[in-house]
């Protein structure tokens, strides 16, 4: 039922990527996103794509799930590649009124779609292999330097943690309220979109009221447990960089080197 929905689609496992330090994973993801936009010929693009496939192979997550995550954005890929085909410059291969297709346009379309696919696959890999708690934890630790700019890093991380904690609870509650309203004859299935949205009002109002009540009680429970913000707070889990993590950083560095070499030796096509 509704309560089985999990956020972040984490797939428990024991693969290499699962065991990596979440901080390293996030940083490498960002690095990879930069890399993939630094590919200017087919060989370097191929190197990137091969790296993605290699990471997916290591990730201990069924490939079907990756295909599923691609399905959602297939429309975006098609639209952007079509737009890019007509965007190129140079001598047209094919002309139709004001639309003209050039070789560089076709190259552009291929690059854009491969880049988007790689991007989605590699970021899915992060959410598949990292539990939401590890993610928020890593984000808090990575954002720590921002404290200099008076950004409340701890508070943001705490809000994310609580939000994640209460998603299933509130889903369950929505379920209950909907059943309760249906039992009193509320009609939520029939009618057009506008009518359906209107029918949600008697569900949303109790849900909001109860969410505020929960927030009040949770705040009290947190105070009872001596919560006083991030100052002087310690953490149970300490993240350590393991040899595995250094290995992965090394892999990323090698990838970067490969891309640079390919870009230098071979001519750029876009």
């Amino acid at each position: 039922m509704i309560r089985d929905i999990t956020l972040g689609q984490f797939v428990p496992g024991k693969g290499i990527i699962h065991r990596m330090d979440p901080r390293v994973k996030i940083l490498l993801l960002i690095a990879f996103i930069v890399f993939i936009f630094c590919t200017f010929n087919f060989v370097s693009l191929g190197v990137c794509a091969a790296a993605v496939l290699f990471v997916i192979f290591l990730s201990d997550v069924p490939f079907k799930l990756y295909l599923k995550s691609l399905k959602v954005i297939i429309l975006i890929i098609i639209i952007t590649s079509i737009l890019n085909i007509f965007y190129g410059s140079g001598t047209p291969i094919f002309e139709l009124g004001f639309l003209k297709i050039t070789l560089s346009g076709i190259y552009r379309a291929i690059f854009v779609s491969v880049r988007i696919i790689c991007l989605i696959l590699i970021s899915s890999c992060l959410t598949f292999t990292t539990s939401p708690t590890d993610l928020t934890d890593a984000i808090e630790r990575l954002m720590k330097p921002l404290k200099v700019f008076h950004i409340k890093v701890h508070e943001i991380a705490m809000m994310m943690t609580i939000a994640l904690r209460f998603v299933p609870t509130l889903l369950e509650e929505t379920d209950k309220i909907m059943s309760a309203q249906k039992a009193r004859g509320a009609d939520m299935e029939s009618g057009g979109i506008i009518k359906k949205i209107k029918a949600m009002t008697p569900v949303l109002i109790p849900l909001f009221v109860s969410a505020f009540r929960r927030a009040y009680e949770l705040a009290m429970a947190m105070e009872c447990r001596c919560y006083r913000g991030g100052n002087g707070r310690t953490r149970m889990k300490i993240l350590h960089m393991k040899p595995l993590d250094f290995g992965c950083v090394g892999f990323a560095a090698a990838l970067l080197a490969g891309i640079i070499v390919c870009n230098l030796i071979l001519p750029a096509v876009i």
Partner: protein
Amino acid sequence: MSFITAENIKFSYDEENKNVLDGVSLKIEKGDFVALLGHNGCGKSTMAKMLNAMLLPDEGTIVIENMSTKDEELTFEIRRTVGLVLQNPDNQLVASVIEEDVAFGPENLGVEPSEIRKRVDEALKAVDMYEYRTHAPHKLSGGQKQRVAIAGILAMQPSCVVFDEPTAMLDPNGREEVMKTIHTLKSRGITVVLITHYMNEAVQADRVVVMDSGKILTEGTPKEVFSQVNLLKKHSLDVPQATELAYKLIGVGLRYTEMPLTAEECVSFLEGVLR
């Protein structure tokens, strides 16, 4: 000096309303198991929040191990000493992994990471939830969630735990689990204050305090308190079922020596009568 001393506490939530607490004095000794009884709105939950400085009395003082709750510098020390477990288990859990939630308290206190790990494991073992430490709270039953909430308080190593109707939202199984955990705490020398309106839970305490409209109506051992059936009935309070039965039988002319409190005691009482 008692472990907890409350003297002539008066309190109202806003100025126009009448006092929720109207001159409550209470002494709790170290290692005691005290049950606080009373019907809704008699001020027992307010009293619970007084004991860990969540609320401060308008008049009177509360002193916990020589710390007055009025001293703002001691607020966190008092909350560490007196833990409070609330009614709704769902709204007390902060993190989406059990062990992280239990670690929340000690993390706030700034305890060393290795020490937190030790305390978390210990607390989870004490409430018999250790094998669930990596689970998500929303997959647990109500009783299990409440036990995790208790572990979260235990990890702060309090010397007293106040329970504010911890079983009110649980099914009978969950209630039994929580009561078992409360007895475990008591056997470890932790002072327990249990606020409840289940009489069979109050009977298990060493001492029962009955509150009514912001005042203490009567207090004593469960036997002493529940023998005053007339007084309790007058204030529309329940007595344990066993006591109720005996009381009715006495009403029709049975002689008795001692009021039964539990089903077992009631059986032997009836045996004695029938012989």
